[in-house]
């Protein structure tokens, strides 16, 4: 299967901010992004939080790929800042090993997906493509964490921050290992609807974690 076959019909949001301190990894991701069809001038690189913040001052970005372990701090901080600046931004975590708790923390901070570095190029590229097409990667572990974290919403009060019955159903199926297409088939939804549900779940997760932070700050007397 050729790469070109995979890159058909893609709308590429640009520019892309790639934050990783390892030159090798940066080159690898750069190659993958170029394969996906990005022009070289659409890619912005940063090797640290400081560089990334500097880049943000210069230009707006449409997609961020963030490594969590950076020399001057955690990528989660950066994700938090990015999300605050632009609620609609796609943010992908590029994580070294599968440190699940860390990935979950990144999702809470506002990441919309993640991919593991040690996976094959093909797998990473497929994950990137999924994000570029508007998908929302999720895995069973994350689904289970979210089910524990977010309360089920009350019937008739759709926007109280809790999960709707449909969202709960989708998470349950994710936790069982079903792919988004399978879930769509199971629930008579399109795959894209399932993905938009998942994005909304991520959004709720992030809002919930922010609300918790504000609540905690209020309790500690940090807010007047």
């Amino acid at each position, binding site marked *: 299967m050729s790469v070109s076959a995979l890159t058909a019909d893609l709308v590429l949001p640009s520019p892309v901010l790639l934050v990783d301190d390892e030159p090798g990894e940066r080159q690898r991701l750069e190659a993958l992004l170029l394969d996906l069809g990005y022009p070289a001038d659409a890619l912005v690189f940063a090797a640290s939080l400081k560089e990334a913040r500097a880049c943000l001052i210069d230009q707006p970005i449409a997609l961020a790929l963030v490594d969590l372990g950076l020399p001057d701090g955690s990528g989660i901080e950066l994700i938090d800042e990015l999300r605050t600046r632009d609620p609609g931004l796609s943010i992908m975590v590029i994580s070294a090993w599968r440190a699940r708790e860390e990935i979950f923390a990144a999702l809470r901070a506002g990441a919309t997906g993640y991919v593991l570095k040690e996976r*094959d190029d*093909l*797998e990473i590229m497929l994950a990137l493509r*999924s994000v570029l097409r508007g998908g929302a990667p999720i895995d069973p572990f994350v689904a289970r964490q979210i089910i524990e974290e977010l309360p089920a919403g009350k019937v008739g009060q759709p926007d109280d921050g809790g999960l709707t019955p449909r969202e709960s159903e989708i998470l349950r199926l*994710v936790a*069982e*290992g079903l*792919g988004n297409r399978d879930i769509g088939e199971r629930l008579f939804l399109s795959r894209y609807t399932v993905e938009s549900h998942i994005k909304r779940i991520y959004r709720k997760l992030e809002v919930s974690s922010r609300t918790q932070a504000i609540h905690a700050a209020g309790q500690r007397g940090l807010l007047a």
Partner: protein
Amino acid sequence: MRWLALLVLWAFAAPAWAQAPASAADCTTRILAVHAGPAGADGVKPAAADWQAVSLPDEWNRRHPDFAGGSIWYRIDWRQDCPGAAREPVALLLQSVVLAGEVFVNGRHLWSDTHLTEPLSRSWNMPRQWMLPENWLHDGVNTIEVRVSGVAGQSVGLGPVFIGDPGHIGRLHDSLRWHHRTLFEINLIVSGIVGILFFCVWIMRRDQTFYGWYAFSSLFWMAFAANILIISPWPFTSSLMLACVNIIALLLSVACFCMFTWRFGEQQVRPRTERTLWSVTGVLIAALALAPLSFVNAAQWAGFRAAAIIFLANCLQFLVHAWRTRRREHAILAACLMVLPVAGLHDALVLTHLIDAQPIFPWSNIASTFALSAIMGLRHARNLGRIERFNEELAESVAKARRELTVTLEREHALALSHTRLQYQLQIAHDLHDGLGGALVHMMRSVERSTEPLAPPQVLSMLKFIRDDLRQTIDTNYSASVTIPATPQEWIAPLRHRFTAMFDELGIASEWLLPEAWRTPPAALQYLALSRLVEEALTNVIKHSGARNVQLRLDLPEADKLVLRVEDDGAGFDVAAVRQAGISIGVRSMTARIVRVGGSLDVVSEPGRTLLTARLTLAGA
């Protein structure tokens, strides 16, 4: 010990009879003469010829050892001389009547004891006073007659008699009562309380025998000293029996006291000495209890003297003992013991008029009782102090033991920790050896055997395989989810999700058929091997087969059997060639791995259909 007090009374320690001195008024009362004589039949007064002049106090039986019981009459003639015509009121005081009696004034009956026949009342230590009725008296010589009743072998007689001014007689009466009764009442109460107190202590602390001996000594002494105070022989039926019981109590008291001093002083008394003490005591008690009437008096005296001698000897020997041990406690006790003989000596001198003083024995007795109690209290306090010190030492050593235990436990904990760490490292090493090591050896052999240079994709495939193995080893050792998944669904969920995401992107349809629950859960190594097999198989499907449909199916045909099938409709490959040439390192490594966890792997492949079948035997939990 304290029976010397009795000696004092026995010997009629009170001052000799006296006539009242001139009162504040001008009248003088004088005793003119005292006569005594044995009563006739039915206690009638003696004939005029039988009266004989005596002086009070009089102990009739001393002058008439053949006294065989019955009554003695005493006649006291006295007169009151007043300067004027009017007489003053007159009071009479009898210090003691041995043993019981009745009083007549000028022939008129004034008073009598309750029992004048056996068992006799006991007035021998009971000072009594009366106002003499005015109209019974007359000018000139008046007569007071006292009939005294006694029993054979026991003392009989009359103590000092005082006649005179009521005020003076009253004071004298009070003084006598104090010295002859109240002091002894105090004695008795003190002995009783101390005895009961130490008895209780002894009951609680049976090993401290000296408390017990002292308690018994005190209680027997009480029984003995009660003789001084009682005025009725009840519950005994004769005066003689009472006297015997009295001496028996004294003997026991002395014996117990000896035992007390020996135990208290921690003296190494030879058993023979103790046996001798108890034999002598026993023989004397038997003699008192069984002696015929004629020997009872002798037995009483023998018992009394023996008790006195034993007590004195014991006091002296303890003095020597205290001198030897030089212990303060012993010295105090010895001094305390010596008080009593010294007081006895003093009183003896008083009695014999060698010195002029009041008897001090009752006082010294109370003092020595208190002193003894204080010594034992000291001993008790010292023991308590020792217990407290012991408690402190105990607490200290417990704390020390606890510290040592803590250190030991910490050391053991550290050891256990390092052992666990070692085990863990061994486990990782083992995993690396079994997983990576096996794959590496296998690949090295393939590279060695290969006649042609290896193509880059082959090398890449080898390296990827090793990387996946490494990742699984690390995942297994470092993630918290080493536990075996509860259901097949839970086991496959991460793999299924990961690969369906890719299948969806690539447009490959996948079907996942798994039972709801394990019949027997696979062992940890087995489920890891299965995970790797699925990962490897599906990776191959994506990369090499160009398949459009994939099916993964897990069956549990028997309780201990597991069959996993991965089927695709891709291009397929030459199974034999793959096995021989090692084109796909994965297939060979997976086969070896499944075999190692007790299973087998079959690969069937043809264009359009490739089927991997892994069979495992589950050992159960």
